């Protein structure tokens, strides 16, 4: 019998590495089964989304022909308004978050103003305040500010909440930049505003991307808050919009499934273009939470 020490002692390094990871077969099979189970509901949705009601009654879960693409045409008409609302609210939020959190993070990291530690901890402390504590008072506040039924009722609180994690990530990054570089700019007569805009921000582009992706994921999936502050359903973003769409057309299963699938596409597109930022943001952001 060949012991491990013998097998490791001989052979080229390539072989050694390989012996560390044996038994691919059953691992691939186990993970493969998991993956199939994970996409099974989506496959079901695709199949049903191409059925008319009578086709669904006859053969609910296997493909039937002709394929009813008109379900998608129907869903597009309703989903597109929700999608537009989402793009407006999540888009405005992400711009606000990037601007505010990069400004504050630059200040915390590079300007030694008296009291900055205290102010920074005042920001940090909010990480401990969960949404459950603020839900009811936030709603009353939005009502008293007369922002009910406006996009601002989503954008303003989302900017306030979203910038906290952004400040944490960006401050760490600005602190990692060499201080001499900023000093050199100051000696050359640049103001802090100019340094922030022309030097710091361009260097931070990928970190801004990470913050943006995290922020969009957060606001995009918000289900309950918009239903409180927006009495008119035509104002709802995609997530509550899909919920109300399913409620409304529940028995037209083909149309419901087509709508749910269409509603999934925007994030998939975002992921395709930003996959590296995505993985980085999810792992780093979660660690810093």
């Amino acid at each position, binding site marked *: 019998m060949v012991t491990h020490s013998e097998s490791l002692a001989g052979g080229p390094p390539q072989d050694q590495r390989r012996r560390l990871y044996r038994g691919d077969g059953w691992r691939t099979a186990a993970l493969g089964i998991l993956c199939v189970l994970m996409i099974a509901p989506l496959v079901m949705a695709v199949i049903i989304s191409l059925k008319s009601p009578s086709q669904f009654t006859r053969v609910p879960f296997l493909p039937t022909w002709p394929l009813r693409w008109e379900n998608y045409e129907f869903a597009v008409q309703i989903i597109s308004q929700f999608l537009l609302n989402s793009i407006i609210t999540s888009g405005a939020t992400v711009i606000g978050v990037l601007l505010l959190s990069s*400004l504050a993070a630059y200040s915390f990291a590079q300007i030694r103003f008296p009291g900055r530690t205290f102010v920074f901890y005042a920001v940090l402390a909010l990480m401990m305040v969960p949404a459950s504590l603020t839900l009811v008072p936030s709603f009353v506040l939005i009502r008293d500010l007369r922002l009910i039924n406006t996009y601002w009722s989503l954008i303003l609180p989302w900017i306030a909440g979203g910038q906290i994690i952004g400040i944490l990530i960006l401050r760490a990054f600005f602190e990692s930049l060499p201080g001499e570089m900023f000093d050199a700019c100051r000696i050359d007569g640049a103001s*802090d505003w100019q340094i922030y805009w022309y030097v710091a921000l361009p260097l931070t582009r990928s970190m801004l991307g990470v913050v943006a992706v995290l922020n969009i994921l957060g606001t995009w999936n918000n289900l309950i808050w918009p239903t409180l502050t927006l009495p008119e359903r035509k104002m709802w973003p995609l997530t509550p919009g899909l919920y109300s769409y399913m409620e409304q057309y529940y028995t037209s299963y083909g149309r419901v499934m087509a709508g749910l699938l269409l509603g999934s596409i925007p994030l998939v597109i975002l992921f395709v273009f930003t*996959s590296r930022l995505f993985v980085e943001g999810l792992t780093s952001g979660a660690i810093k939470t």
Partner: protein
Amino acid sequence: MKKTLWERIWETKTGYLMVVPTLAFLLVFQYYPAVSGLYRSMFDWNAGLAGNFVGFSNFVELFTDDDVFIRSLKNMALLTIWYLLAFVGLSTGVAVLIHRIRNEGSKYFFRLFMILPVIIPAVVLILLWKFIYDSTIGPLNAILIGVGLQDWTHAWLAEPKIAIYAVMFRNFPWIDGISVLILLAGLQAIPVEIIESGLLDGASGWRRLRYIELPLITGQIKLLIVLTIMWGVQEYSAVWAMTQGGPIDSTQVPGMWMYFNAFRISRMGYASAIGVVMFLITLVATILNMRYIRSQEY
């Protein structure tokens, strides 16, 4: 010459100006609601009126006279324990499996696949599972009938004894992509030399996992445990979308009960008190988290 405080403040005025917008937003939309929530939890307060100060009687009522709240706490505990098993336990298993795959191509594929539950909007998965559980046309019952288990079919979300388990078991096979990615990053950071020397000492398979890999990713596992607990305490959007807490409050969780009191029956002071209880539970979890982070630094 030493500068006075005022001179230093004047010199760094840009620094203040840059944090002013952030602070304004935080004061109005974070600090004010948080303080107001703590304050209003002591009022008998409905939507419009100023309300009467009632001291701690909202909290007394919660714990002595509100069976639904007590049940919601039990459900919250049940769900949180389940999320810990499913998210942290299962994710660790999946991360180790992916990590040990030798073929780089399939390793990359499986890593990429773990993103899937993240990029499908959470509400889509919840709604798909609501459909899967449907008692008349849902595929779950159809599968049970198909394999001859008619007796096992249920109105999954409509039977009080079963609904909470249906909410629990949604999103089968319960893989949490973010957890897998975090754990995988931890596993990949382990130097090959450590594994190799472990192998030289005869540690392979289970023992390699138990004595080398798991101890080296305890940081990530602890972090996920804390995050999952905090999430489990707070989360109620799945319940909101699937059952709204019903049937007969059998799937009630604290967040849902807070929502119901505040926005259905206008008991906003009482709802604020529920929010405060959830805040305190989360605070304990966060303090544990901070303590653990400190222990990592030393």
